[in-house]
C-alpha cells in the first residue's frame, strides 16, 4: 500500500467512526434523556442536569401503584397478543394461497389487500364508534381487536407470502404426490418450515397493535379497556394541577424497554420483515 493510499484509508476510517458515533448518539440520546428524567423527582425536575442529582426510583414506584397504568399494560398485552395470534392464523392462510395456489382474481385481491394499508384510521373511527356502541362492544377489549386485525393483516399476509415463496415448491409437491391434500401440504409441510416467517410477521403485528393510538383512544373511554398509548394521554399522576413529567417518563421507559429488548433479540427477523419485497422491484 502506498503512503497516500494508507492516508486515504485512515481518513476513511476516521470519517466512518465519526459517522457511527453520531448515528448512535442520534438514536440513543433522546432515550437516555427520558431515563434521566424518570430518575428525577421534586425540584430536580426543573433543571436540565445531564445526570439526575438525586437519582430515585420513586416515579417507578408510583406508576406501579397506579392501577390505571397496570391495567393499561394488561390491556395492551391482551389486545396486541390476541390480535397477533389471530392475524397469524388467518394471515398465513391468505399468504399461502397468494404464494402457492392458482385461483382467479389473485392480482386484484392482492391489490385490494395492499390498498388497505393506505386507509387512514380516522376514516373508520366514527363509523366504528357508532357500530360498536350499537353492538355494545364500545369501550371493551374485544372491540379493539377487529380493527387492529384489519389494519395488520395486509402486512402479515405480505410478509408471510414472501416467506412461503422461499420454501422450495418440491417439498409440497412431494407431499401431494404422496397423497396429501393441498391443505395438509400447507399445514404439515410448509407451515413448520415457515416458522421464521411467523416470528417476523408476529413481531411486526404485535408492535403495530402495541403502538396504535387513534383507534384505541376513539373506541375506549375507561381505564378497564384502555391500552397503553391512550392511557399515557390520560396520565395525571399523583400530583394534581401539575404535568407529572417524572412519572410519564418512568411509564414510557417501562412500556418501551420490553419492546427494545424484543427488537434487539429478533433484530434480524424484524429487518427481514420490514424489507420483505422492498428490494425486489
Amino acid at each position, binding site marked *: 500500500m502506498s503512503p497516500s493510499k494508507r492516508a486515504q484509508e485512515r481518513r476513511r*476510517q476516521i470519517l*466512518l*467512526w465519526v*459517522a457511527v458515533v453520531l*448515528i*448512535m448518539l*442520534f*438514536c440513543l*440520546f*433522546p*432515550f437516555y*434523556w*427520558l431515563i434521566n*428524567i424518570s430518575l428525577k423527582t421534586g425540584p430536580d*425536575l426543573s*433543571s*436540565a442536569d445531564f445526570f439526575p442529582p438525586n437519582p430515585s426510583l420513586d416515579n417507578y414506584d408510583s406508576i406501579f401503584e397506579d392501577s390505571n397504568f397496570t391495567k393499561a399494560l394488561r390491556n395492551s398485552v391482551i389486545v396486541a397478543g390476541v390480535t397477533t395470534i389471530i392475524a397469524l392464523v388467518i394471515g398465513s*392462510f391468505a399468504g399461502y*394461497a*397468494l404464494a402457492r395456489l*392458482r*385461483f382467479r382474481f*389473485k*392480482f386484484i*385481491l*392482492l391489490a385490494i*389487500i*395492499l390498498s*388497505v394499508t*393506505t*386507509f*387512514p384510521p380516522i*376514516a*373508520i373511527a*366514527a*363509523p366504528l364508534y*357508532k357500530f360498536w356502541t350499537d353492538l355494545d362492544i364500545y369501550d371493551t377489549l374485544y372491540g379493539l381487536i377487529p380493527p387492529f386485525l*384489519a*389494519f395488520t*393483516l395486509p402486512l402479515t399476509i405480505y410478509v408471510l407470502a414472501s416467506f412461503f415463496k422461499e420454501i422450495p415448491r418440491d417439498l409440497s409437491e412431494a407431499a*401431494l*404426490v404422496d397423497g*396429501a*391434500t*393441498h391443505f395438509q401440504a400447507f399445514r404439515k409441510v410448509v407451515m413448520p418450515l415457515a416458522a421464521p416467517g411467523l416470528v417476523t410477521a408476529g413481531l411486526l403485528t404485535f*408492535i403495530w397493535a402495541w403502538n396504535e*393510538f*387513534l383507534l384505541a383512544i376513539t373506541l375506549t373511554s375507561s381505564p378497564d379497556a384502555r391500552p397503553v*398509548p391512550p392511557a*399515557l394521554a390520560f396520565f395525571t399522576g399523583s400530583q394534581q394541577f401539575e404535568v407529572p*413529567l417524572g412519572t410519564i417518563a418512568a411509564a*414510557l421507559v417501562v412500556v418501551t424497554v420490553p419492546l427494545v429488548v424484543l427488537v*434487539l433479540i429478533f*433484530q434480524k427477523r424484524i*429487518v427481514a420483515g*420490514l424489507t420483505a*419485497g*422492498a*428490494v425486489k*422491484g
Partner: protein
Amino acid sequence: MEAASVAVRRKQRRASGLSESRLGAAMMAPSLIVMGLVAAFPIGYAVWLSLNEYSVRVEGLSRFVGFDNYSEALWGDTSSEFWDAFKNTFIFTGISVSIELVLGIAFALAMHQAFRGRALLRATVLVPWAVLTFGTGLLWRSIFEPNLGFWPSFLETLGLPGADALWYGEDGYAMATIIFADVWKTAPFMALLILAGLQVIPEDVYDAAKVDGASVWQRFTRITLPLLRPAILVALLFRTLDALRVFDLPFALTQGSNGTTTLSLHAYNELTRNRLIGEGSALAVLTFVVVMVVSFLYIRFVGGNIRAMAGDE
C-alpha cells in the same frame, strides 16, 4: 413415468375434496371478510355519514344534505381550517420525509461498511423504531421542555437563538418539534430499507468503476444512487403515506396548536370535541381521498417499479 405421476396426482386431487382454486378462495376468505367488514365497509359508511347533517340536541336525528358538508369544508365559512390542515400536513410530510431520506441514505451507507461493531450499529438504529409513536411525542416534549429539557439548555450553552422559545408552543417552532420527533423515529426505518437495497448491488460494479478511475463521489452518484432507485422509491412511498396520516405526534406534542393541526387531527377534533359527525366524517373522507390521490399519482408517475413489485406476486 411423468404421465403416470400426473395421472395419479389428478386422481388424488379429485379425491382430496377441495380443488386448488376453491381452496385458494377458502383460504383468502377469513382475511378478506375481516378487512371488508372492519375497514372497507366502515369507510363506505363514513361516506354516508358525511352526506347527512346531525342534530346536536336530539340524538339520532339526521337529514340528508348531499355534498353540503364537503362544500362547507372546502369553501364555506370554516374552510380555512381545512386548508390550514391541508397545508400543515403537506409541509410536515415534505420536510420530514426529505430529511429522513437524506439521513436514511447516510445511515445506510455507514451501516453497509465493514467494521467491527457493525452489528451493534444495526441494532441501535432499531431502538427509536421500537418506541411508541405517541410515546415518541411525549419523549420529544420532554426534550423541548423549558428548564428540564435538553434542547433549550443545549442552545443556551452554545449561545444559539431559540433557547428562550417555548418550542412546542410557538408558531414555527411547534412544527419543527413534530418534524424532529418524526425524523428521529423513522429515519432508521428508512435506513434499513435503503440498506437492504445497498446489499443487493453487486460489488464488482464498483470494482469496475474503480479500475476506470471513478472518484468516490462519482461512484455514489453514478452507481449507488441509480441502483438504489427501486429501494428509495418504495421507502419514500411508505413514509409519505404514513406522514400524510400523521396524528399521534401532533396530539402528543402540540395538540394541534400553532400551525400543527394535520388533516387527521382536524377531522378527529371535529368528530370528538365538536361532535360534528357530518362535517367530521366529510373531513375524514377528504383525508382518505388525499392519501389515495397522492399514492395514485406517486405510483402512476414516479414508481412504475412498485407496480412491477406487486405484479410479481
